[in-house]
C-alpha cells in the first residue's frame, strides 16, 4: 500500500486540492464526507484495490491511515473494526 498515493486518491474523491489529505486526518471530519462520498469511497477501493470494504469497518476507522490499513487487509484494523 502506497500511503501517499492513497492520500492523493482521497483528495480526488473529496474534491480537495492535491496534497490536502494527510494520513493522520480524521476520515469523517474531511470536508466533503457524506453518504454520497462514502459510496464513492467504496467504489474507489473496489476499483483500484479489488477490495469490497464493509461499511461498518470503514466507520470504525479513525484516520486515513486506518482506512489505508483496512484497504490493504491489515488484520489489526480488521479485528478492531469487527
Amino acid at each position: 500500500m502506497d500511503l501517499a498515493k492513497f492520500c492523493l486518491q482521497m483528495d480526488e474523491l473529496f474534491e480537495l486540492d492535491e496534497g490536502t489529505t494527510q494520513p493522520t486526518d480524521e476520515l469523517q471530519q474531511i470536508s466533503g464526507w457524506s453518504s454520497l462520498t462514502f459510496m464513492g469511497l467504496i467504489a474507489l477501493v473496489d476499483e483500484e484495490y479489488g477490495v469490497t470494504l464493509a461499511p461498518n469497518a470503514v466507520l470504525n476507522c479513525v484516520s486515513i491511515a486506518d482506512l489505508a490499513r483496512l484497504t490493504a487487509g491489515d488484520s489489526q484494523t480488521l479485528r478492531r473494526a469487527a
Partner: protein
Amino acid sequence: MAATTVPGIRCAALACAVPSATEGAETDGVLYGVEAAGKLSAATGVRSRHVAAAGLCTSDLCCAAGKRALQQAEWDPASVDALIFVSQTPDYLLPATSCTLQARLGLSTSCAAFDVNLGCSGYTYGLWLASTLLGSGLSRVALLVGDTVSQITGREDRSTRPLFGDAGTATLLERAPEAPPWSFVLGTDGSGRDHLIVRRGLFRDSPLNAQPELNAEGRLFMNGAEIFAFTLREVPPLVEAGLRSANWSRDDVDAVVMHQANEFMLKHLAKRMKLPAEKQPLSLGDYGNTSSASIPLTIAAQLADRCAAESLKLLLVGFGVGYSWGVAAVEFGPLPRPEILSLDAEPTVASLMERRAC
C-alpha cells in the same frame, strides 16, 4: 442459490403507468438548496421522477397498465387464470390488493389472486412465480408489479426522496410450447433487513402506535453504503449464475436490465462486470428508482421498439430490500409495443368505485 428453468412461456404484452406529476431539480432545490440538489442528481443520475399525489395508489397505476396490456394482447379478461400483485405499497393491511385488482380488471372469479411483498427483486420473483404457475398447468397469468415509494419517504430526507419514483406495470404471460426456456436464480439474506426498512406500521411495532406521519420510524430508512456493499458482493456473481443457468454467453444477451437502483451504482457494476453501456439500458434519469417496477419500466422506456420488432434475450437482474435478489434469463418479443401511460393525480373512476365498495 435457488435455480430453476421453466420451458414454454411467452410474454404476450407489457405496459406501464406513471403518475403525471413530477419532482426534480426545481422542487429539490427548494427543499435542499440548489447546489445540494444538483450534487444529488449528479450522483444518483435521477433528473426527475414521477410522484403520486395523495389518493393515487400503486394499484391504480397497475390497474391502468393492466387494462392497456389486456387490450394490447387482445386477451379476454375471463381467460386470465391467476393474478400476482408484487408490491410493498399495497392499498390496505387487508384484504390483499390482488383481490381488489381482480375485480377492477374484470377478471373471472375463478382467477387465483395473491400478493407478494417484495421490492427491488420483485419483478424477477414475479416472473419466476408466474412461470412456475404456467408450468404447473395454468394457461395465462397477469403479473402486476409496482410501488409508490414516494408515499413512505420524508420530503426532507435527501437520502431517499430524490431517488425514488412511482410506477405500476403489467406483464401478461402465457403458455407457448414453442417458446425457449426461461431460467431463474434467486436468493435472500435477511440479515440485511435493517439497511432498507420502514420500521413502523405493522406488527413488530404495535399498529396502535403507528403514526407514520409523525414519526421517522414510519418512513423509509436507507443505509446507502451498506446497500452498495451488498450489491458489489451479490450482483456480479448473480449475473454470472444467470448466464450459466440459461447456458448463455455474454455475447448471446441482447440486454442486461438491472433494477434501477442508482446510476452511480449501476455504472460501477457495469464497469466491474465489463458490461458495455449499450447492453445496460437505464431509465432512472427520467423515472428514478421505481422499486419493483424499475425493470419492466426500463424495458418499456428503452427497449420498446426492439421488443416489438424481434425476440430479445434479456437478463433481468433484481436486487435490494430484504436483502433479496433474483435473475431471470428470458426471451421477450415480438410483442405489442410496450407503452408507458401517464395517470393524472386525480383518483380514477375505478379507484373511487373501489373505495366506495369498501
